[in-house]
């Protein structure tokens, strides 16, 4: 065991920190063009697609280097690049399963932010049970004809392209009749409707497809192997988010420590209230444990060990912890924690000092609301617990109606959990 950062890591961190001190935008990025320009700058500095193979424009950076960049970005609340899903999921999928033509056409533009991608997986009736999806891609000559609806598509309203899972064989069992198809979001028949969330904002959309015609060349991999393609644990960016999550919570907690020295509650300053002190100590300890656990994950990644189902423990840990922390913060701040505007300067979440990040008027309520999403997206906490139970602890699979039905007419097929 040695939990020190190496001299190499420390030097890299110093370089990264210096870069952000020099290049961090001084004003919030409002337009898509401003965000693309920032993405381009990050790309040119080598901070986009860090883990990608060099042959495809990446850096093949170590997980620790990715983690350090993520941590440093969170530390200064730097805006993210555009089209994160393109970097984390779409690009690696095309590199692994795409044809040479597809790679040439798409990969570079994903990295540079020239083209923004979204994921078209979930449907209104297929959330956790993703493999039950019904959106159809019917073969008509050398084209697919797409009909159906997708939902929870992050960034679909600004996307040029989408990576879709669609049903191409309705007679096959549910995991076997799905294909993976690239969709030009500008095609006629594609309608994107932003979805207003409980935060009041619209990071996600619904997308409707009516007789959208797509060249058969846009198929990724073999026909009817889309589920297997989507299930392959891909991605080169494994280190990226490990420390940035911790850093984001640390920055927030650090600001909270300032705010409770101003905030007055019954009996005086909040920082002198013994109950509030206990809550602050509990949050601080939990954030530290998240840091230790993240270092443990990084240590494994550094040795080239791929995170298997254990990744579900990390996802469950982080998202549930975030929910707990945000709840306690709002308990401590009382009504001030729920203000969306006109927040007194000394009680603002950003301390008036983070012009570059998303403009949330210094409200504590946005991270509070957003924390409810983390335990639902990318596989809900319940799905994560199924994965941990069955694939880490080795518990027998639950009795499920769809498995019983699949077993009736013919032999059962191996079934995995859904979730994107």
């Amino acid at each position, binding site marked *: *065991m*040695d939990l020190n950062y190496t001299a190499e890591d420390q030097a890299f961190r110093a370089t990264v920190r210096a870069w952000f001190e020099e290049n961090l935008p001084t004003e919030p990025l409002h337009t898509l063009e401003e965000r693309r320009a920032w993405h381009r700058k990050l790309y040119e500095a080598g901070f986009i697609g860090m883990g990608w193979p060099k042959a495809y424009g990446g850096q093949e950076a170590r997980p620790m280097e990715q983690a350090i960049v993520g941590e440093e970005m969170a530390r200064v609340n730097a805006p993210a690049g555009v089209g994160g899903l393109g970097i984390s999921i779409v690009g690696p999928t095309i590199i692994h399963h795409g044809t040479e033509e597809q790679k040439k056409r798409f990969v570079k533009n994903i990295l540079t932010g020239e083209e923004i991608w979204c994921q078209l997986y979930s449907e209104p009736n297929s959330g956790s049970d993703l493999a039950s999806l019904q959106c159809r891609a019917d073969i008509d000559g050398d084209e697919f004809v797409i009909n159906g609806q997708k939902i929870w598509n992050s960034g679909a309203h600004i996307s040029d392209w989408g990576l879709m899972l669609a049903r191409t064989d309705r007679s096959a069992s549910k995991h076997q009749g799905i294909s993976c198809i690239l969709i030009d979001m500008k095609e006629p028949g594609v309608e994107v409707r932003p979805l207003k969330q409980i935060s009041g904002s619209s990071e996600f959309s619904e997308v409707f497809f009516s007789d959208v015609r797509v060249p058969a060349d846009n198929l990724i991999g073999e026909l009817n192997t889309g589920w297997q393609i989507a299930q392959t644990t891909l991605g080169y960016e494994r280190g990226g988010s490990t420390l940035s999550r911790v850093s984001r919570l640390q920055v927030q907690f650090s600001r909270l420590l300032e705010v409770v020295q101003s905030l007055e509650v019954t009996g005086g300053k909040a920082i002198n209230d013994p109950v509030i002190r206990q809550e602050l*100590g509990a949050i601080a300890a939990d954030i530290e444990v998240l840091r230790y656990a993240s270092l443990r994950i990084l240590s494994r990644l550094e040795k080239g060990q791929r995170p298997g189902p254990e990744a579900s423990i990390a996802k469950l840990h982080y998202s549930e912890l975030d929910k707990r922390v945000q709840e306690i913060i709002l308990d401590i701040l009382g009504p001030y924690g729920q203000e969306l505007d006109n927040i007194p300067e000394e009680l603002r979440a950003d301390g008036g000092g983070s012009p570059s990040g998303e403009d949330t008027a210094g409200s504590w309520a946005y991270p509070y609301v957003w924390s409810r999403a983390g335990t639902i997206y990318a596989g809900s906490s319940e799905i994560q617990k199924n994965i941990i139970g069955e694939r*880490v602890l080795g518990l*027998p699979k*639950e009795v499920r109606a769809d498995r019983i039905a699949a077993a009736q007419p013919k032999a059962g097929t191996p079934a995995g959990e859904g979730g994107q």
Partner: protein
Amino acid sequence: MDFDFTEDQVMLRNLVREFLTEQAPVKQVRDMMDDALGYDTTVYSQLMGLGVTPFPESYGGGGLGMIEQAIILEEMGRIPYPGPYFASVILAGSALMHSGDDNARARYLPDIANGDLTATLALIEDAVDWTPAGIGLAVTHDGGDLVLNGIKRFVPFGQSVDVVFVAGRAPGSSGADGVSLVAVPRDAAGLTVEPTTMLDMTSKVATLRFDNVHVPAENLVGAEGGAAAALEETLRAAAIAAAAEMLGASRKSLEMSNDYAKVRKQFGQFIGQFQAVKHKLAEMLELVENSHAAVYYAAWAVDAGAADAALAASVAKATLNESSKRVCGEAIQVHGGIGYTWEYDLHLYWKRAKYLEPLYGDTSYHRERVLEESLAQHAAS
């Protein structure tokens, strides 16, 4: 960045696990519940013969670090081992190591290391206060003797050890000033030992009453009035060691529950197929893995002399206080009725974890310390 054990650490873990599984099986642990001494002296001697102490080799120790101590304590938590290792090595041993007193080290450590001498630390009194302010026992002079008057409670193995290291203070002093550490033979005149049976009957504690107990001045350990810093370091090691032991009890409880959920059938299926049980086990695993990270980060921080060693120790103890009672308690729930029987072993782990929870700082004590460390870090940045 390497969070894995070294090969030597893995070997140590396997050695201790093998030894304890063979030499201190759970039947023996149960026999010790009603035993006045509370442990098998032969097994304890053999255990110490493995060279499992942090003391320098010049004092007959194994020169192990805090990480290795945590590994050993985690294994003891899996038994749960009933002997005076924690009392002698972690409590008395750490106090001696940090005392700065070469004479005292040479006098006691070699015998503690080979198991010939058992020892403990008497710290808290009527008030469960882990700060120096909680130390009220009076240490005065009478000719060439030191004289002790006062009470010490919840002294681990206080009923059987050879030597008790007693924290006391000069009359009129307060806080960290005036705190001294004095070695007192358990059979000293004027010292009354009252064993107390605890919920965890495999952990022996006693109340010690000091009524004009005279010991020679040479029994003073470290500088007179200057023991507070050594006690602080000792409490840090004790908090991490206790957390490690709680981790062992938790992981063992989880393993037993997971095994049981795969064989126990109700309503025509294994109970581990029900999400109500499966999800509980998944949550228990998450708690155990996070607890592992907390314990070994804290142990590493001590060994590495990291700036956040005090913070990490309190994080670890606060975390394990909560996670171990949840995991060991849910293990009983997963088992249902069988888990509530005396014959089933789960209650041994549950009670050991509960026994350690208030000791060396309860959750609120350590959360307050975490906050204080965080505020100090924040002010410095």
